[in-house]
Structures are given as structure tokens and as C-alpha cells.
């Protein structure tokens, strides 16, 4: 029994680690197919794992992607956008984080917000690369 209790979280961890590398199309499809907002506890592992990855590597775009998946699943756009701002304050890689956010928003059909994030992306890109 003890073996299984230890094995299940490990398996779950690896599954979620793979989820970080899932194609965004799959995630978008999954979210669009949800007619109801899933329970917080169902998507909580994404958040936990994402935070764990970022704690180890603050520049890991995959870690941020997991947390953003959690925010998208909970269908709270304010939380989603606030999360991106928090990431930036914590030192997330810019402008990549904005492009990632725009891509995820596009996949769940939030085109207006995706375009706003693309504007943020271009602004950050120009500040980082173009105006040196």
C-alpha cells in the first residue's frame, strides 16, 4: 500500500510534467470542450506543478505555461491577466511570456485579449531588442 501511495504522486507528477509539453492546441481544445467550469481541485495540480518548476527555474516558460493553463481552466480572465503581470514582476522571461499568453488566449477564442497581449509582446520586444 505504501508503495502505491508513493507511486501515485510520482506518476501524476510525470504526467503533469508531460502536460507542460502538451501542444497548446490540445489544451485549447480541452478548454473549449468544457461546457462547465471544472472544479478548482481538478486543475489544482497544474498550479502546484507549475509553481514547483518555476521555483527551480524562474526562466522556465513551461512552468509559466502550466500556471496559465490552470488560470484558463478556471475561466477567470482577470486572474489570468493578473497572473501574467505577477510573473513579470517575479522575473519571467519577457517578451516570451506575453507571446505565450497571446497564443493561449487565441486558442480559447479570446481574440481581443490575444491582440492586446500581442501589443504588449511587441512593446516588450522593441524595448529589449530593437532600441538598443
Amino acid at each position: 500500500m505504501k508503495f502505491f501511495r508513493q507511486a501515485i504522486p510520482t506518476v501524476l507528477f510525470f504526467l503533469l510534467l508531460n502536460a507542460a509539453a502538451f501542444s497548446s492546441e490540445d489544451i485549447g481544445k480541452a478548454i473549449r470542450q468544457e461546457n462547465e467550469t471544472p472544479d478548482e481541485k481538478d486543475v489544482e495540480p497544474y498550479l502546484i506543478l507549475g509553481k514547483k518548476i518555476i521555483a527551480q527555474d524562474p526562466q522556465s516558460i513551461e512552468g509559466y505555461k502550466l500556471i496559465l493553463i490552470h488560470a484558463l481552466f478556471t475561466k477567470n480572465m482577470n486572474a489570468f491577466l493578473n497572473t501574467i503581470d505577477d510573473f513579470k514582476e517575479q522575473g519571467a522571461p519577457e517578451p516570451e511570456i506575453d507571446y505565450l499568453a497571446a497564443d493561449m488566449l487565441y486558442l480559447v477564442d479570446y481574440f481581443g485579449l490575444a491582440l492586446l497581449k500581442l501589443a504588449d509582446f511587441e512593446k516588450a520586444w522593441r524595448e529589449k531588442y530593437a532600441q538598443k
Partner: protein
Amino acid sequence: MLKNKILPLFKLQIVSYAFTALLLFTVCFFVHFGREAHSSKSWEYVLPGGEDLVYWSYGKGRIMTPRCDGNPFYFEEQGTRHIIPWTTAETIGLISKYAKIPFSWFFPAWHILAPFLTWLLIVLCCWKLWDYPLSASAAITYFLLFSTLFHSHQMIQWTLYRFSRPLDGIALLFLWISLVFKGNRNNKIHFCASWLVPPIVLWLHPYYAGFGLWFTVIEYVRGLLKNKNASKFDLRFWMTVSTFIAGFSFIGYAFSGENINPLVLFGPTKPSFGSPFLNLLTSFLWLAVVWGTVLFFKFSFREKTTPLDFLTVESAIFLVWVCWINGFVVPKTELIVHLHYFLVPMIFSMTGWVYEKVIIFKKSGYFSIFSKALVFLTILVLTLSLVIKENLIFCSPPYFSIKILQYFFIILVSVWAVTGFDFLRRLTTKKGLVYGLIIAVAVAGHWIIPLNPQNRDFPFAGAFQWLKKNAQEKEVVLTASRKYRFCDYLFLKTGLKSYYNDYGSGNVFIESPQAKFRVVFYTALLLNRVDKIRHLEALSLEEKIHLVRLDYVLIPIPSPFYNVVTRQLQGFLKLVYQDKKCFLWKVT
């Protein structure tokens, strides 16, 4: 003729003041737009912001065939117009068309003449209708108008800049209100103005017509109740009649022709305008301050209630009414967004009102008590600012009534200082000092206005020149950049249409299948996902490209989107123009 007829005119104080004002506003134009031209490296690209671009585009759209002032940016939206006319923009377009004057010439003309005429008309009202001295009216009008340039709220800061509202209606509304309170039925000029001003204000600025009508009707009814023998057909009666006649013509316009959906009036309110409850509460706070002051003077000093008392109380009630309507009757209307339009008339009436009350204090013998109370209040506000680390006098809260209270406080302290200290009062009589101060405030105000970042080293000037020479009328250009989403100048400078821009896809233009596809394709292109647009997987790339008209692709250099755009549209792009700042491809 110059010596005999024109030069003697300058001996008239008002003419010399007006000439000086014209020069001052011309200097102000060059102070600000000279900086913009330096930033963009061209006098062609100096618009102060995206909204100005939209309204100038409406003017240009009015003279296109078919008219396209409803949405001048999109090929598919031609032939439409707005349910509420942008009268100033459209009139400028029509003058340009029929008088054969280049449309771009109206830009400096507007930015010099509009503030100048606003200043002049307000000065004339203060002088002729409210009986203030001409010199004081001129100086105070300068200071109050220029004070908007220093405001921390962006929309108020742009009051003298934005084309065309609210500047095109401010002075006329001021004249309307002045006629309501000070007009004389037996004066032929007043009588003619009472017929002309309300319709012009209504057509220029419907929001202002609501504000003007509010005072007109209240004062008319109040006049009848107060004096039952008074003429029922006074100026206010005729102003109400002319407003309703104009209102019918306006409704006739609104419900005929190819109008844009009236929902344009009821766009979602931005969260920055605060909670409806606090909006209402703060407006009640302002009403309490005003009404309390009026009652205090009425019962403590046995002073008669003056027209300025009524004006200030009625405008405070108007504010409460708007906040109530906006928050609890028809939520999320555009009314609350446009409350700042009413700031200038309100601060002018408030200044006269505060001056009137402070003078009563000065004559009453209670001035020292009033001074001590005001100094105590000032110390309290400053201490509170230090404690909460927020400048309570100059911060920009989302609530309009708080902004009015801030102005009230600043005006109260200024009037008290000038009235209470002899040396300050003497300074205000030194002409040279006052002139110097006005020029300093004007130049400083125009200097601190932020520059439009989209103008900075504008990249598409060369491409637009090429397009003007070579493109066919109404061809469509996709600008692959989000930086210029509000201010790409494409339609204004070339007459060509955009594939996508944020104003063209505003709230009323997003419902048609074409409009939806346009947004999806444009986003997908920038995100490298054109080959995987959902529901359109069966379409080839060529079919997707031509689903909505697309003739050119324009991209600035450098750009994060260069690689994704060229890779995805490979085989369909033919380079037709290139310089150090941009690429322009023809879509084949």
C-alpha cells in the same frame, strides 16, 4: 485703410486682447506640435493620439464616395455613417471638398482657432453677460483653460487638444448657460442667440445639449413658480422650443440612412470609472458641500440666493442624476465616460461662485475665522496626504465628483489668497507680471503634454508615398504591427483601407462573419497559426488570404513578426517597396 480703419481697432481693449490671444495660441501650437514633428521627423505625422486620428478620419470619410464616416477604415463598411453625427469633423470634410482646400490644412487651423475661439467666447460671456471686468475675464479664462493641461487625468488633460469634442462645444455651452441665467428677452442679440445656440450645440455635441436643457427647463419652471406674473414666453421658453425642434431633426437624421448600430452609444464602461455606488456617493458629497454652502450664506448672512448659487447647485444635482442613471438605471452607459466633458463649464461657474462667497466673507467681518478654518483644512489635507502617501489635491481618482472637489479646493485657496493678502492683490494688478505668468503657464502646459509614442520616428512615411502613387483606390493594406494599432495614419494619408485596426474593429463592427474572420486571421498571422485556423482547416492558404480583401502587407523594420509573416505568406508576397524603416509587399 490699414491706418484709418484697422489700426484704430486695436485701441479697443477686446481687439488687442483677442489679437494677443491668437498669437499666444499660435505659439502654443508650435510648442507642442513642433516637439511632435521633431519626434516623428515630419510635420505630416504629428497627431496627438489615436482618437484624433479616428475623428479626422471621419472627416475624410465623409467626403469619400460612397461616404464612409461610419467606419472609414474597412473596405466592407463603406456607405455607413454614425447615428450621432460627428458634425465638426464632417463639416470640415465638406468645406475641404467644396472649397478645394487640402484637408490637412485644417489640422493647424483647428488647433489654433478652436482654443482661441473658445477663449474668446467665454471671455465675451463673462464680460458682457456676467458683468465681470474684461481684463479679469481674459486672465481667469486663460488660467482655467490652461489648468486642464496640468491635470493628471488624461482625458481632462486633452481637453484643449482632442479633435473635435469636447472643445467644439465648450464655449457654446457656456454661452447657452449664460443666456439662461443672464439673458434678456428684449435684447435682439440675446433673442437670436437663444434660437441659434441650442440647435448648434445639439448637433455639435448631444451630451452638452442635455446639460444645457437641464438648466433651461429648471430655470424656466423656477421662474414661473417664483413670479406667476412673469412672461411665459421668456428666453428660456424659446430655448427649450428650439432645442426640441433641433431634437426632432436630430432624431430624423438618426433613424434614416445607412446608420451604424446605435449600440455605439452604449459601449461597456471601463472599470477605471470606479464603482457605481461610490460614484453616486461622491456626487452626493459634492452636492452636500454646494447646497450646504448656499444655505449657510442664506441663513447666516441673510444673503439672497444668486444665479451662480442656482447654477452650481443645479450642476451638482445633474451630476448626482448622471451617476444614479449610469449606476442603477441604465448601467454601463457611455455617459459616465464623458463626464469630463462637463468639467470646464463646471469649474468656470465654480470660480465665479467661490469668488462671490469669499467676497461676502471679506465684507462680513468673519474673514479671519474663515481664513483660519481654510488654513486648518489645508493643513489637514496636506497631513493626510503625507500619512497615506497620496497627493490628495492632484491625484486622479476615478470619481468625477472628487475631481470637482479637488478643483474646488484649489480655486478656494487661490481666491482666498488673492482676496486676503494685499500684496498678492497688488501683484494681480501688475500687467507685465500677469502677462508673463499667462505665457509661462501656457508654454509650460503645452510643453508637458506627453508626445504620441506612435509618432516617434514614424516608419511608414515612404511606403505611404509609394502607395499614394501606385495603389488603386480603396485597396486594403495589412499592417503587421501592434505598435501602430491606434495610430497607423493609413486611411488619413493614403485613403486606402486597413485589413485590421483596433478602431475599425470597435464594438459595433465585430458581429459580421467577415469581421470575425478578419480578427481571427490577423491574430493567427501574428501568432504563426494561419495554417491551423479552427473550422477553416479545409480551406487552402490562398482561399484564406482572399476571404476578406487583402492587397498589401506592410511591416516596420525591425519587427518581431517579420519572420512569421514572411514564412506563412511565402509565395503570395511580392516586394514592391522597401526602405530603412519598412517593407511593403503586394499580395498576389
